[in-house]
């Protein structure tokens, strides 16, 4: 497979640009509350100039803001590489917006309920014009507390949108009980242990809490809490699985990956997509780790939606941080470990068909 990785080259040909426009990708299935949130962004007196790209054709201006329609157009590259798949409509619209006088403070991209977030995110790394002028700020996924369990059962796209998210807005929390919310959050965590979950009603949230979050900035990878992946039994967010060592008493066999016949508020269960957490208390050999990670992404990149990690490299005072979207990998030495900071390595991989034991063995074999 011939894959293009142009980032390093971009850096050499474009003058460093500090004022790249942040782009928030807003995903969520139909009815999750995206339109409510967008209407708030457009009507609130925020004093900023936003452009919103929606999935209908046409263009309207609302006060300072601009709404642009675009038909979803997924472009596969002729090298067949999955990680090079981009959204042609976004390249076209973002490039057009860059021609406008005055620019924008931020751009929000609404995807359809059935959109795959992968090509949307990849566009910001793979297309030179888009990468030169904008930066992906976050993939923000809205889910609706009342219907999300059903959607996650029914829809591969719904699971992918949650798994891909940098932050999750759990909306319509007023329509369900606290106990139901706990079950929903547990399942969301199982799918995506990296994204913070914010509870909202009627998509009400301060815009500065969702826009301009710098979620793809390596400098902002400050902490990864592997215990989020599967909190201890009895705690919030615990997901029952075969390692629990007790009988769940469900009275039926799990046939994972298929439609279940229990309702939205059924038990917590494992989805086809899940987050796998790895950690190690010994320093890691930098070269061995890079080799392992490159090989892993080359072989399983299409199945790995997101990954992030903070690694303690033997003989290095700085933390190695990395993140990946499918096969697109960024990594760098970040700040020094603090004098009282616990030095340890941890990484989270979110994807489908991931073999936890195999990942764990490969990761631990990188120990220095």
């Amino acid at each position, binding site marked *: 497979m011939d894959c*293009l990785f*142009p980032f390093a*080259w971009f850096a*050499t*040909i*474009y*003058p460093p640009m500090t004022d790249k426009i942040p782009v928030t990708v807003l995903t969520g299935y139909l009815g999750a509350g995206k339109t409510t949130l967008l209407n708030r962004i457009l009507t609130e007196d925020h004093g900023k100039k936003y452009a919103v790209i929606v999935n209908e*054709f*046409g*263009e*309207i201006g609302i006060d300072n803001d601009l709404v*642009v329609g675009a*038909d979803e*157009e997924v*472009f*596969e*590259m*002729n*090298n067949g590489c999955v990680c*090079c798949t*981009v959204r*042609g*409509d976004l*390249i*076209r*619209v973002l490039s*057009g917006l*860059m*021609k*406008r*006088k*005055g620019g924008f403070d931020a751009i929000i991209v609404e995807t359809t309920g059935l959109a795959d977030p992968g090509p949307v995110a990849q566009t910001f790394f793979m*297309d*030179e*014009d888009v990468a*030169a002028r904008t930066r992906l700020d976050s993939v923000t996924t809205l889910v609706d507390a009342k219907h999300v369990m059903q959607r996650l059962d029914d829809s591969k796209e719904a699971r992918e949108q949650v798994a891909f998210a940098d932050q999750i807005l759990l909306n319509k929390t007023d329509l369900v009980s606290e106990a139901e919310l706990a079950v929903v959050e547990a399942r969301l965590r199982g799918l995506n242990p990296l994204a913070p979950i914010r509870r909202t009603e009627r998509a009400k949230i301060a815009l500065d809490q969702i826009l301009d979050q710098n979620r793809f900035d390596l400098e902002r990878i400050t902490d990864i809490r592997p215990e989020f992946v599967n909190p201890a039994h009895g705690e919030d967010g615990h997901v029952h699985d075969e390692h629990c060592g007790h009988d769940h008493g469900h009275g039926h066999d799990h046939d994972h990956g298929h439609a279940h016949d229990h309702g939205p508020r059924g038990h917590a269960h494992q989805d086809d997509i899940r987050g796998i957490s790895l950690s190690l208390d010994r320093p890691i050999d930098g070269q061995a780790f890079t080799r392992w990670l490159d090989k892993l992404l080359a072989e399983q990149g299409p199945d790995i939606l997101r990954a992030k990690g903070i690694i303690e490299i033997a003989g290095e005072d700085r933390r190695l941080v990395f993140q990946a979207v499918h096969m697109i990998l960024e990594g760098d030495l970040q700040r020094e470990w603090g004098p009282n900071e616990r030095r340890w390595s941890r990484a989270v991989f979110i994807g489908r068909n991931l073999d936890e034991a195999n990942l764990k063995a490969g990761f631990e074999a990188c120990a220095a």
Partner: protein
Amino acid sequence: MTSRSFDAPVTAALFDASGQAAFALGDGTVRFEDGSVAEVHDGAVLSACLHPSGRGVVTGGDDGRVVWSTPDQAQELADAHGKWIDAVAGSPESGLIAFSSGKTVTVLDPADPHYRRDFVHERSVADIAFEPKGRKLACATYGGVATWFARIETQKPTFLKWAGSHTRVLYAPDGAFLLSAMQENQLHGWRLKDSKDLRMGGYPAKIRDMVFFDQGRLMATSGAHGVVVWPFVGAGGPMGKEASELGFEEGVAVVRVAAAPRGPMLAAGLADGRVWAMDVRTGPQRWIVAERGAPVTALAVREDGGRLAWGREDGEAGVADLAT
């Protein structure tokens, strides 16, 4: 050299038949060299070409309008009702104008206000080019290039297939070849008499611009550290031949190219804002704009090779004499 400082990104620079420069901008205006300003779009100019008459400029805006501007007046040619006009093209030979809005390419005849042809594609059209006689047009889209007879109302296009997204399209001046630039940093070409594919790869960056010059014997493109020049001599064109790279400089990319169609004068606009010109027969490159700045977004060489116009993303622009 005369410099101008506009307060909007420069979308396009052009020379009209009288030899005067015009700039189309991100504030929806067209600025003529004589200082006159046509305020024509509510939003940005997304695309621009010379009017087939050689007088004035045709622009497509993000307000969905297609407008013909001259220093004296502006006239709306079409309104796509809010759909962005991503590409415009004009043919002096047939007098026709074509523009794309989303998946539709529309052909207009300025001599006949009722004339209109709409050609619908499966995917959005990124660029349009008329063949040299102006009777056909090629539309770059996803999966290939569609060619249409410009005047026939109902027809099926000839679709030249090549996997991937095609972003720019250009006919060789003798009509023998059709070239397209692709999302995946490569050129693709077709020899039209037998639809033979030409694969022209090896580019490190996106190819935003291509131009034929020197009587059609050479084609220059952006997308590398220098200007990539392909030979188009003989029945095979560039087949089996190697491209040369002019003005190579490590650490910077050529993003715009322009040239005189019949002469050897070639110009390059760089990602760091500099502009050079070169008579490819005699060399060497001459710096027209030596100080660095925002990326060059517009570049034009007058038909006789005597003048050059350039514009940058930050609104800086200028016109320079190339004659020595």
